């Protein structure tokens, strides 16, 4: 394992410090308890959006802090949910009295730590709502598991709810838009290579040269099944075979298609996958009206890709297109 790091213990602190240095026009980094807030926080009158989770998924979440998206991001250790004190500090830093929406990916650790923070914040008089994202259709059985995981759809929730908050929607409205976007988003990913957590030094799982991990989780936890490696088009079709019937998406739907890298996939390969996914959706009569291709929710240096499909309507398109100014998603500002 070769990594561009110093002491593994300092990975998150140093990385977030570098992030703060690079994007001082957009964010402010607080070192202890560690969290990232938008430069102009708290924004008077605006509902504040706070998210967070284990590190190693960059640009998620700090890369999405800024105008039209998150007010604060709370990074945990690599692949480890942040602790409640950090989350609470972030909530306190951004609450402008209009309340805080927590966007939490559905993993036991995230849910429990954010729950604790929400209780502490509520006790201090902060108005809190929580939306738990669970767009990952790889998890088959939601009853006898921790439930579906939050993955790529989280970025779309952050963006669209963020735009609603920027527009002036109140806490309940922003929370309900976030929940509705999550409910209409479906994702699934495949890994070609594992990843290695810095302090561990061991790959998260083993894959032979002719195998892929289908339904991989973003923490490098093994997926649904190990399958023989296939051509890109076939892999994309396999992912969509699970994603599309789940909502279900139907002919006539307008959607946003997100083709996400895992951190180590060349962009050229993501576009090859995106090409087939767009083509397949067209074959099914589903119109791709917005696209997002690149590394958005990663797992360190893992190679592979994940697809997210979100059903759109006029309002969501308008919110999607509204100005956004973050380190990793930016337009019209």
């Amino acid at each position, binding site marked *: 394992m070769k990594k561009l790091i110093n002491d593994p213990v300092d990975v998150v602190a140093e990385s977030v410090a570098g992030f703060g240095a690079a994007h001082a026009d957009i964010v402010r980094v607080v070192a202890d*308890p560690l969290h990232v807030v938008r430069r102009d926080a708290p924004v008077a009158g605006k509902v504040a959006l706070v998210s967070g989770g*284990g590190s190693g998924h960059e640009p998620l979440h700090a890369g999405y802090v800024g105008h039209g998206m998150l007010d604060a991001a709370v990074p*945990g*250790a*690599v*692949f*480890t*949910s*942040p*602790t*409640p*004190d950090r989350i609470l500090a972030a909530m306190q830093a951004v609450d402008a009295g209009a309340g805080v929406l927590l966007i939490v990916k559905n*993993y*036991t*650790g995230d849910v*429990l*730590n954010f*729950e*604790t923070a929400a209780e502490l914040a509520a006790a201090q008089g902060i108005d809190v709502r929580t939306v738990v994202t669970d767009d990952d259709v*790889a*998890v*088959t*059985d939601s009853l*006898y*598991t*921790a439930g579906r*995981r939050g993955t790529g759809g989280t970025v779309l929730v952050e963006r669209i709810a963020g735009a609603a908050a920027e527009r002036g929607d109140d806490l309940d409205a922003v929370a309900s838009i976030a929940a509705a976007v999550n409910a209409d988003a479906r994702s699934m990913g495949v890994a070609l290579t594992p990843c290695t*957590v810095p*302090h*561990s030094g*061991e790959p*998260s*799982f083993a894959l032979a040269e002719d195998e892929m991990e289908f339904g991989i*989780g973003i*923490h*490098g*936890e*093994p*997926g649904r099944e190990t399958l023989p490696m296939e051509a890109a088009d076939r892999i994309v079709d396999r992912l969509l075979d699970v994603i599309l019937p789940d909502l279900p998406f139907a002919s006539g739907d307008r959607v946003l298609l997100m083709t996400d890298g895992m951190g180590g996939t060349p962009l050229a390969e993501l576009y090859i996958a995106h090409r087939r996914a767009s083509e397949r959706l067209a074959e099914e009569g589903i119109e791709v009206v917005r696209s997002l291709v690149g590394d958005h929710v990663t797992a360190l240096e893992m190679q592979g890709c994940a697809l997210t499909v979100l059903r759109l309507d006029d309002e969501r398109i308008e919110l999607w297109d509204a100005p956004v100014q973050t380190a990793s998603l930016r337009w019209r500002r």
Partner: protein
Amino acid sequence: MDVDSNWATDWVRRSADAVAAHKADLAALDRAIGDGDHGENLDRGYRAALAALDGLGDDATPADALMLVATTLISNVGGAAGPLYGTAFLKASGAAQGLDELGPSDVVAILTAARDGIVLRGKAEPGDKTMVDAWTPAVEAASAAAAAGSDVRAVLEAAAGAAERGAVDTEPLVARKGRASYLGERSAGHRDPGAESTALLLRAAAEAAADAAERRGS
């Protein structure tokens, strides 16, 4: 003989040692059916707890020591284990409130409160292949030992042994909670890392009691 706050702080120290010594083992277990961070997370938490012990006054009660562990773990561990162990020690501290010396039934009450706290937070049932599968047999064995008239040392010895067996017994189970549940059937054949760390912590508690007994010459 009963135990006091020295036992509680000794428990923290021994726990920190045990977690540090088994960090790689816990990481390996968590890599197999989770994301590989359990060893590092607990170790970070217990190193912080160890450092925090210095701030504990001479007149600290066992409840104070347990509370310190709770808050330190909550704000340093993260992940699933942070809030779960944090709640466990929070409830354990509640059960020890007002006591300077802890007898066998007090220890049973502490262990029971800890287990109940974990179940309250995590909503896992026995058999879901989580740390609850180490805590539950531990609580049962401790109750039985106390009911049979054992002293604190024997009660904790019974709890530690039962937790260790409980951890081993998670191996054939299919996970239904936490990250391992995503694996479904593929989670069978692996020991649950949280059950394993529970066994380490309860073994540390038993050793701290044995040492206390030795020191007092009983």
